[in-house]
């Protein structure tokens, strides 16, 4: 812990801290271009020069390359250093265009700031500048190569940090060029970060290009709700339109970056199709009319059926405020317990997963970067929780071993061992890992009772093809120092997360640190579990509707059709309701069916609290007041000169307000913290993790593992799972992301394809599908044989798809 003096102020920093970072701790920002905390130092730009006055180093040196050492005296205003920096900037500006006014980076450009603050306000060089051709890098990132100052941040980020290989640096000398071999869409799902890290305007945000300057925007800290990780964002909005998400640093969750799904997901909030008016039987009505009618009709139904005749449906994309009020509505009115997902299979896994987590075994996303072994079972990070893939990459770069056990051919941007195990065998696979960890090991001591149970487990666990390999890995886990355990919550069955919990608890005794990380199906699935009682299943609800027991259904921010697989059955059931109330901010198959529709605000207008997958309580601040964008009402011109008291299109209210109207009639947002405190019997603060009541460490239920579906080897199973683009209900409205969404396809092992008579590239037209659905066949021998893998895709005819697949499975 050396103590050094920077600009006459002492600071003590951990060993190995660079001087540039030490200065930051004093609030001193030494100029930098190539240095980035996530990418480290390379000493390429020479703009971070400072004067070393006393101590082990003397003279002008690069502060990003020198470790802070005891007794150093550093002056950032050393005249020689200041002069050097000034000349370095002038040198970097030699070839840089002089057209900040037409550059979209202007206003938040590091180079611009440095050039001015470095004292190089006037160009002296009047010669010709080297120029480059720009490339079309796809719909997300704009390229203007002439603005490059060769800091190498982009190529280091793209290749080393992220592990993608289609953007980098070519050429030499003045011809150094950052881009691709050929123009084309960037392959990395993290490419948008280039716009954040490039210190100049080479890469700028394409969808929001020329929409405004940094100072024009209304900006506010927010949370990404497009997967369960809940990365931190800064939202920029102008003219009532949210047009840009940038990564906001969060040391526990996302670090400095976010994924492209999260970055470009905002379009849903200002799409022309967004429902902004209340509707009664499909016809526009005022909010008051709709709300009154809703209360009256619900009351009437309740009178006839009793409170049981009314059911509540929430979602994992709603804020905690909305979820909490749904729960309160239930407790106050006695209406049916709210259900937060129509995907019961997932709900069951989520419950068992969250019952496994507790205050001591949960780890944060960035902690995974520090693991030396990461075991992933039934988790596909790139599709389900993209930033997890980036964390795994950092772990792997540091020497960590990554193991994926999955029926899907999981791909990661880093080296990993993949073990294909069919979906039904995942629990058995973890049992083999447990056996491997316990069997020849002297590291883990078991008491007599545990010995017994272990014996039974060993006898009963049935053999699977990868058993030996899994046992070897299980054994290797006991020699790891910092193992992390990741388990998905959509593909595995409910037995898997507790087994992973058991494995972690056993291995915990032989290592320094370990923990569990469970990506969840939705942004606020954790919240639904805490506040709403996520155990409420949809199937019984649907059956009650069909049986005529439930006469009214209130659906809040959930397009049931994208969650529930049998769309026909669902449609028929909804048809039989007396009253269907829908509240949402996006149009969907269900909004069109609503008897009463209430438009809700988006996260940009309402803000709200969210619990991410590890239970971290995070706040999104409202950015805009709501209403139609004057960019749209004015059609590019001055908005209509029409006097009115309200904002056009400003009708939507936060969903919780409508729900509150039904319960207590309160108009202030509920304070979620006391509610959480109550639910969890523990205090909680923003940015902190809530702790679930301590989980039980059950030994695996032997029947499940031993007597699992045996004749499996020949059977076929269909797995629908989240893909990076096209699966998340809100991001699916983004037109730029739609351009990146691949053709709908099915992935199978070549053996399976042979059995089905499929070849790679075959197109299967699904019979009787509306809209017509075509499926492209892809072969991948890393998939478990017998698995038909399709991505979740919003808006496709899943009924027809499932019908067709079921007919295949039956044959």
């Amino acid at each position, binding site marked *: 812990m050396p103590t050094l003096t920077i600009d006459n102020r002492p600071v003590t920093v951990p060993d190995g801290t660079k001087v540039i970072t030490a200065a930051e701790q004093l609030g001193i920002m030494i100029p930098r271009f190539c240095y980035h905390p996530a990418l480290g130092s390379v000493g390429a730009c020479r703009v971070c020069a400072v004067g070393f006055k006393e101590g082990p180093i003397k003279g002008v040196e690069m502060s990003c390359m020198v470790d802070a050492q005891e007794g150093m005296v550093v002056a950032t205003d050393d005249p020689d250093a200041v002069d050097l920096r000034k000349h370095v900037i002038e040198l970097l500006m030699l070839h840089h265009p002089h057209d900040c006014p037409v550059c979209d980076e202007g206003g938040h450009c590091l180079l611009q700031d440095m050039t001015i603050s470095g004292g190089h306000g006037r160009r002296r060089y009047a*010669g*010709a500048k080297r120029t480059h051709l720009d490339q079309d890098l796809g719909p997300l990132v704009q390229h203007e190569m002439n603005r490059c100052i060769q800091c190498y941040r982009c190529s280091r980020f793209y290749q080393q940090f992220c592990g993608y290989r289609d953007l980098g640096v*070519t050429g030499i000398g003045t011809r150094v060029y950052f881009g691709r*071999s050929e123009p084309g869409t960037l392959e990395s799902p993290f490419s948008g970060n280039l716009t954040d890290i490039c210190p100049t305007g080479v890469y700028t945000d394409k969808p929001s290009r020329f929409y405004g300057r940094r100072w024009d925007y209304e900006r506010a800290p927010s949370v990404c709700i497009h997967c369960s990780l809940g990365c931190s964002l800064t939202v920029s909005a102008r003219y009532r339109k949210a047009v840009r998400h940038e990564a906001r640093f969060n040391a526990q969750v996302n670090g400095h970056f976010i994924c492209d799904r999260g970055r470009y997901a905002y379009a849903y909030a200002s799409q022309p199709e967004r429902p902004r008016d209340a509707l009664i039987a499909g016809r526009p009505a005022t909010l008051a009319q709709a709300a009154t009618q809703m209360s009256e009709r619900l009351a009437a139904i309740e009178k006839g059926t009793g409170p049981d005749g009314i059911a509540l449906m929430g979602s994992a994309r709603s804020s905690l405020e909305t979820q909490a009020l749904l729960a309160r509505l239930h407790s106050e009115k006695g209406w049916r317990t709210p259900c937060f997902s129509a995907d019961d299979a997932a709900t069951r896994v989520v419950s068992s997963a969250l019952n496994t987590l507790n205050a001591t075994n949960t780890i944060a996303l960035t902690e995974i970067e520090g693991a030396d072994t990461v075991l992933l079972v039934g988790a596909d990070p790139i599709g389900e929780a993209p930033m997890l893939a980036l964390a795994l990459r950092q772990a792997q770069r540091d020497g960590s071993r990554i193991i994926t056990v999955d029926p899907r051919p999981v791909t990661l941007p880093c080296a990993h061992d993949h073990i294909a195990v069919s979906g039904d065998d995942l629990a058995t696979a973890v049992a083999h890992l447990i056996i491997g960890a316990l069997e020849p090991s002297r590291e883990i001591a078991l008491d007599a009772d545990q010995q017994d149970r272990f014996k039974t487990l060993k006898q009963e666990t049935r053999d699977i093809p990868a058993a030996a390999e899994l046992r070897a890995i299980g054994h290797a886990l006991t020699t790891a120092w910092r193992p992390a355990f990741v388990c998905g919550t959509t593909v595995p069955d409910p037995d898997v997360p507790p087994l992973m919990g058991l494995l972690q608890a056993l291995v915990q005794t032989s290592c320094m640190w370990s923990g569990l990380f469970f990506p969840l199906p939705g942004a606020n699935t954790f919240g639904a579990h805490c506040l709403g009682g996520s155990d409420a299943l949809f199937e019984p609800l649907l059956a009650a509707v069909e049986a005529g027991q439930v006469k009214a259904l209130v659906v809040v921010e959930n397009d049931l059709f994208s969650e529930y697989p049998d769309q026909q059955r669902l449609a028929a059931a909804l048809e039989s309701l007396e009253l269907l109330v829908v509240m949402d901010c996006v149009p969907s198959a269900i909004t069109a069916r609503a008897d009463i529709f209430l438009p809700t605000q988006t996260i940009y207008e309402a803000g709200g609290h969210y619990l991410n997958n590890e239970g971290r309580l995070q706040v999104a601040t409202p950015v805009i007041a709501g209403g139609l964008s004057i960019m749209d009402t004015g059609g590019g011109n001055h908005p209509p000169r029409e006097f009115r008291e309200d904002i056009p299109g400003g009708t939507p209210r936060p969903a919780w307000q409508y729900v509150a109207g039904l319960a207590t009639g309160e108009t202030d947002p509920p304070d979620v913290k006391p509610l959480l405190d109550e639910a969890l019997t523990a205090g909680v603060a923003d940015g902190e993790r809530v702790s679930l009541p301590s989980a039980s460490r059950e030994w695996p239920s032997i029947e499940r593992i031993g007597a699992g579906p045996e004749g499996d080897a020949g059977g076929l199973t269909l797995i629908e799972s989240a893909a990076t683009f096209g699966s998340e209900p809100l991001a699916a409205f983004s037109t730029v992301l739609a351009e990146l969404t691949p053709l709908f396809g099915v992935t199978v092992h070549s053996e399976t394809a042979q059995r089905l008579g499929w070849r790679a590239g075959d197109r299967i037209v699904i019979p009787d599908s509306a809209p017509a659905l075509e499926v492209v066949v892809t072969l991948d021998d890393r998939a478990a044989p017998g698995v038909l893998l399709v991505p979740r895709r919003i808006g496709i005819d899943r009924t027809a798809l499932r019908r067709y697949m079921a007919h295949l499975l039956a044959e």
Partner: protein
Amino acid sequence: MLRPRGAFFERTIEPLELHVSEALIEKLKNEIAAVEHPRELAVDVMMALQDHHGYLSDAARDQAAELLGMSALEVDELATFYTFIFREPVGRYVIHVCDSLICWMAGEENIVDHLRQQLQIDFGQTTADGLFTLLPVCCIGYCDRAPAILVNRRVHGPLTNSRLDELLQKYRAEAAEKPGSNV
């Protein structure tokens, strides 16, 4: 003087794609298999394919990428770094003129002027007959023979204008005698 990027990449002749022999591919595969990191052999593979095609065409780059398990971009990163790997078609004789200090003191500028005049091309260009490409190179280690040039990687120097004329004459005659064959 700065040389605009375009001048280096002006495309003058259309490439003639030649089929790479199975034997060469086999040989390269074996060499790659024998090293710990295939990347080590990137330059050798690129050179071998370039010797075959006359330059590293896009197809050759892709083939190199496939052999080495690298992406096309990763091969390009290396290919465009090196002076002696050509990503654009070049003439039958590639003339590299050393423009470093000793050669410059010994009259490099005269050599360049003379070549420009005789060949009617500038740096980065290829003569209309497809025979000569003119490129600059930094010190090639023949300072004792300054001013020096390389023609197809073979050194010539010290040079005078008349010696240059003789050289050009020699290559023209050779080309007339054996049309089509490269190097």
